């Protein structure tokens, strides 16, 4: 099987597949280290909400998706598969999961507001 050996849109190219894997490992470790460091320091500038969630949480989620991309594309070698195959795997997830997230989180916020504004005390 022919391996595509470039990551970061051709910015870094490796000599062999094994080398590429070590490169991806280093990248994933750096991302994890950044996440842990941010989680421990919690810079106060990132704690202000952006679009209903703390900026720090957005960074965590984006970095997680970046990690997921490299695990799927390089470890699970989706990069080497046919585009139609890759799409048939990734598209259902990309469509269904955000939909589920949207529906349930909107509902949860509504329930929170009902409990918060209602006449029943939950703190006793």
């Amino acid at each position, binding site marked *: *099987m022919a391996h595509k050996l470039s990551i970061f849109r051709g910015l870094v190219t490796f000599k062999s*597949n*094994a080398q590429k*894997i*070590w490169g991806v*490992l280093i990248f*994933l*470790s750096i991302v*994890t*280290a950044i*996440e*842990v460091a941010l*989680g*421990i320091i*919690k810079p106060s500038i990132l*704690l202000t909400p952006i679009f209903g969630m703390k900026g720090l*949480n957005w960074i*965590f*989620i984006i*970095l*997680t998706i970046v*990690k*997921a991309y490299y*695990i*799927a594309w*390089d*470890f*699970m*070698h989706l990069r080497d*598969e*046919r585009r*139609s*195959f890759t799409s*048939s*795997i990734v598209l*259902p*997830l990309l469509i*269904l*999961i955000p939909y*589920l*997230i949207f529906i*349930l*989180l909107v*509902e*949860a*916020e509504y*329930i*929170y507001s009902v*409990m*918060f504004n209602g006449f029943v*005390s*939950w*703190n*006793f």
Partner: protein
Amino acid sequence: MEATTDIVENENVWGGGNKPLNASYGKMMMWFFIVSDALTFSGFLVAYGFSRFKNIDSWPIADEVFHHFPFLHGVNAPMYYVALMTFILIFSSVTMVLAVDAGHKMQKNKVAVYMLLTIIGGAVFVGSQAWEWKNFIKGEYGALETKGGQILQFVSADSGKRVALSSFAASQPKDRAQHSADNGIWYVDEAKLPTYSVAEVQEGFLTHPDLRIKTEMIDAKTGHKIVLDRAASEAKITQAVYVVEGANLIRNEYGNRLFADFFFFITGFHGFHVFSGVVFNGIIFFNVLLGTYERRGHYEMVEKVGLYWHFVDLVWVFVFTFFYLV
């Protein structure tokens, strides 16, 4: 070799040839299983998000719950241990890719060594998770629960640090014995009694003026849990009805009841995946040693279990983010 590879070339299985997307039948089905399993996990994680958004102002803070590190007792080390676990799992993913890569080159011994390393990494991860569960179930400080199901924790007024029930609870004469099958009704079970009664904790609290109650509620400005002043603490403690030590599926000393349920359910389901992945890898490892794939002429089975193994890693990346970071 011919006997098995002709499955790949046999045109009669599907009308369109049986490598429709340049992926063999087995590999494709593994991918479609992974897609459905990914939806299952996203269902769990979104359900967790639902409960969390529903209790957005009182959800436990992960740093305060997971702060243990092996051999470092009493040291506050939030997240370092899970970060290490994450790294172990990613590393075992790397050895798995190297095994697949060696399989493409038909290097039997290399495949075996890398598979073994992957299995060890997986076993270490499952062991770490068991340790994490042990700490979570055992708890460290203990807390009180009010009639409304709110958890009241105790902190020192000077340092703001958590205080264990054992360090201040008074000792009162007790006539309450643990109910068990041999001293009571044989078909009725009773959950293990807490070490201290509510009255003992209340009395101990009143004789220690430096103690304060930490509520479940989060201060939106600082992001910390709200600590009551002494007068409010003394009023609040009269509402307590139950002593909570550690965690089970009904209540936990960390806060919202759903928190422990989701922790057990999601990390447990993931741990079950890791465990089954270790078993699958073990089976394939022995097949490699026996030379099954050498005779078959290709190591595609290694690639298929590899896909499953990477998927387990992929799920952990999300569990890590939503349980420990966000």
